[in-house]
């Protein structure tokens, strides 16, 4: 009788503790939604029986132990970006029993995210990523507090936000946000675990930690926008950010538990194609750094989009190289096709993208070949032009329409074609198709693949 009474009471205490935790998490989310400061995580002296069981496999590690686990449960981590890096990072931090996870992302879940952003689900398409991630994490570990911020990190809010957390993980995907997060961490005095990935490579550095350098120490000047490639343009194999996000989670856990990080003043470079990790010794903190140096010129957050010359929220840059009269819309091009107006359509995308999908009547010449004035390609185009001219008996400038994925490279290609001397291709009239094949897919032919 007494045993079962004790068991009943234990179960009741467990139930109420879970309820309390859930209420605290709800309170944190509600406070965050109101923009109010979060209450500090409660200081704890010991682990409960449920926690001991749950974390037993890491508790027995002498490097972590009860002390480390208690530190984890008292630690708040801000995750900036719930994408390819943020998903695996947040997953391992939640599983390990971190106290609170702030999840920042302004974006919504899209089908093309699912190959790498492994917390989001097919059914969650269109949901804010911050909410989608929080929902998935809650199913994994309901004892962690999740605070979703479905918004872009901005210079007006970043500092207040970062101050409420102990460690920051930069899982963002653009240059302005990287400077913003780093500056906020320097001003708030928080360690920053930063990772990035593209194509088949990854990089990781821990900034502003134990006297080490900050992001600006390493990169005082931002790269010009035309030298920056994003995952949509450059591509990325999903597991690569997965690997980087996992190492990032590891470093956050080491910092949070008091073990300490291995990557202050070091960069980890990962080459997935070669299967190689490289450890690079970096410069120390720079005395003349604009924000963490001895006489900082930056003492508050700035306009980072202006500083970098690029947007923190745009998925793709849209170039405007050609005047309006040298561009046509997909609707105009469709009409021209229907009316069988003689022309040549040149697709200037790389081979790998043409393999994915293309318009059957297009001629393929990659932009890179055009830019280097590849003889074989120009000869091939010249021959096709000659045939079409004769077949249609066109004596005037022959129309060439150039298409690519989104309508940026097609403009560059038109400029190359225009600059060719007449002896190369004869008299031509080159224009590009605005919005490229993706506009074709969304406005003209819904069965055409989008990628």
């Amino acid at each position, binding site marked *: 009788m007494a045993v079962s009474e004790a068991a009943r009471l234990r179960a009741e205490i467990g139930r109420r503790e879970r309820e309390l935790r859930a209420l605290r998490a709800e309170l944190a989310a509600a406070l965050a939604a109101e923009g109010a400061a979060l209450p500090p995580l409660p200081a704890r002296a010991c682990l409960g029986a449920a926690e001991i069981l749950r974390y037993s496999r890491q508790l027995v590690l002498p490097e972590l132990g009860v002390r480390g686990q208690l530190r984890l449960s008292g630690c708040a981590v801000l995750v900036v970006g719930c994408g390819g890096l943020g998903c695996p990072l947040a997953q391992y931090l939640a599983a390990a029993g971190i106290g609170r996870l702030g999840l920042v992302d302004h974006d919504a879940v899209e089908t093309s995210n699912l190959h790498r952003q492994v917390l989001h689900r097919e059914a969650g398409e269109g949901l804010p990523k911050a909410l989608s991630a929080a929902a998935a994490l809650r199913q994994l570990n309901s004892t962690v507090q999740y605070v979703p911020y479905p918004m872009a990190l901005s210079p007006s809010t970043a500092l207040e936000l970062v101050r409420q957390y102990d460690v920051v993980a930069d899982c963002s995907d653009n240059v302005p946000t990287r400077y913003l997060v780093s500056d906020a961490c320097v001003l708030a005095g928080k360690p920053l675990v930063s990772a*990035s990935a593209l194509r088949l490579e990854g990089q990781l550095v821990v900034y502003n930690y134990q006297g080490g350098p900050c992001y600006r120490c390493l*990169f005082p*000047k931002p790269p010009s926008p035309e*030298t920056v490639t994003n995952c949509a343009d450059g591509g*990325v194999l999903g597991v690569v950010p997965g690997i980087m996000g996992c190492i990032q989670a590891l470093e956050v856990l080491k910092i949070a538990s008091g073990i300490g990080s291995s990557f202050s003043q070091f960069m980890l470079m990962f080459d997935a194609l070669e299967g190689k990790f490289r450890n690079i010794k*970096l410069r120390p903190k720079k005395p003349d750094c604009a924000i963490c140096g001895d006489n900082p010129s930056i003492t508050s957050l700035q306009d980072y989009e202006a500083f970098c010359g690029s947007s923190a929220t745009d998925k793709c840059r849209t170039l405007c190289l050609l005047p309006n009269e040298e561009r046509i819309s997909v609707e105009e091009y469709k009409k021209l096709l229907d009316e069988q107006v003689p022309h040549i359509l040149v697709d200037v995308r790389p081979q790998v993208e043409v393999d994915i999908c293309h318009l059957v009547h297009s001629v393929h010449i990659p932009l890179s070949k055009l*830019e280097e004035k590849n003889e074989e390609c120009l000869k091939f185009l010249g021959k096709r032009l000659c045939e079409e001219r004769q077949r249609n008996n066109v004596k005037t400038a022959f129309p060439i329409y150039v298409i690519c994925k989104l309508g940026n490279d097609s403009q560059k290609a038109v400029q190359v074609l225009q600059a060719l001397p007449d002896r190369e291709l004869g008299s031509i009239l080159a224009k590009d198709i605005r919005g490229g094949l993706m506009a074709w897919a969304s406005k003209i032919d819904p069965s055409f693949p989008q990628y």
Partner: protein
Amino acid sequence: MAAPVSLLVEFGGGAELLFDGIKKHQVTLPCQPEPWDIRSLLKWIKQNLLKERPELFIQGDTVRPGILVLINDADWELMGELDYKLQDKDNIIFISTLHGG
């Protein structure tokens, strides 16, 4: 007269795309009156390896912002940057920083 210098020059993080997608280049710099340093190596790369759009790699006499230079797995800032005197068998890496996530 400085002896010829053999180097392993590597490009990564997307910088290799300016060099026909080839990441590793085994190069031998010829004899010249002055010893080779990173400054003269950059000029040599511009003349011998770089095909299109040099401004995406070199600006002025140095690399463009966003490219880290590594000398034998160390940040070039620790080694004297442009003035570092190249040694035979050195490994020089030019890595473009990634921003994707």
